[in-house]
């Protein structure tokens, strides 16, 4: 499937990318991370959470949605 990956805050800055598409065969969030780390090695050093359908997912969650969002630590308020 084709995924749309969105990056926010410092992640958009370090990857120099706010949004990109990539093709991904079925798998978990951990599988997707491998692909993303290969593409953007700098991500590996950073702390972030992954959201699918506006809900945080863990490494063993199955990627089933076309839009995945990577969120760095929050700084509201």
């Amino acid at each position, binding site marked *: 499937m084709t995924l749309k990956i969105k990056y*926010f805050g*410092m992640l958009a800055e370090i990857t120099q990318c706010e949004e990109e598409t990539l093709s991904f065969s079925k798998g978990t969030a951990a599988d997707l991370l491998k692909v993303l780390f290969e593409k953007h090695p700098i991500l590996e050093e950073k702390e972030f959470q992954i959201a699918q359908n*506006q809900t945080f997912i863990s490494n063993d969650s199955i990627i089933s949605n076309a839009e995945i969002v990577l969120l760095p630590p929050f700084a509201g308020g």
Partner: protein
Amino acid sequence: MTKERKPKPVFIEGAISAEFIGNSIAKHQSKTTIGAHDIFLGQVRADQIEGKTVKAIEYTAYEDMANSKFHDIREATFKKFNLTCMHIYHSLGTVKAGEICLFVFVSSPRRVDVFNAIEYLVNTIKEQVPIFGKEIFEDQSHQWKVNS
């Protein structure tokens, strides 16, 4: 049955003005079951980091998720405390040091609920809402803020 509330707009472009906050207070004079208001104002601090001073924070958010989080937090807070009304506003874009970036306003017949609700609300917003802040220094360099 609990009343379904419509999601309310939270984000404001730029700083939240004293006039906006004053008007918001004035609007409550007609709600005479209220006996206590509590307000939290978050202000941008001119932090000194390695000899440089923060002059502004530039806020961005994952807006779709942030809006639904704000809605969930509102609903949870209404369930938890006896509140008459609740208003939450957060800035997006640039807010200078000394300006207000978060305005949380709760009202209730009695004071205990507003004291407890405001603390719960502010802590939950900081912890759960995907908002990001870039601290801009006087020399235009920057670093990314992380809530502690």
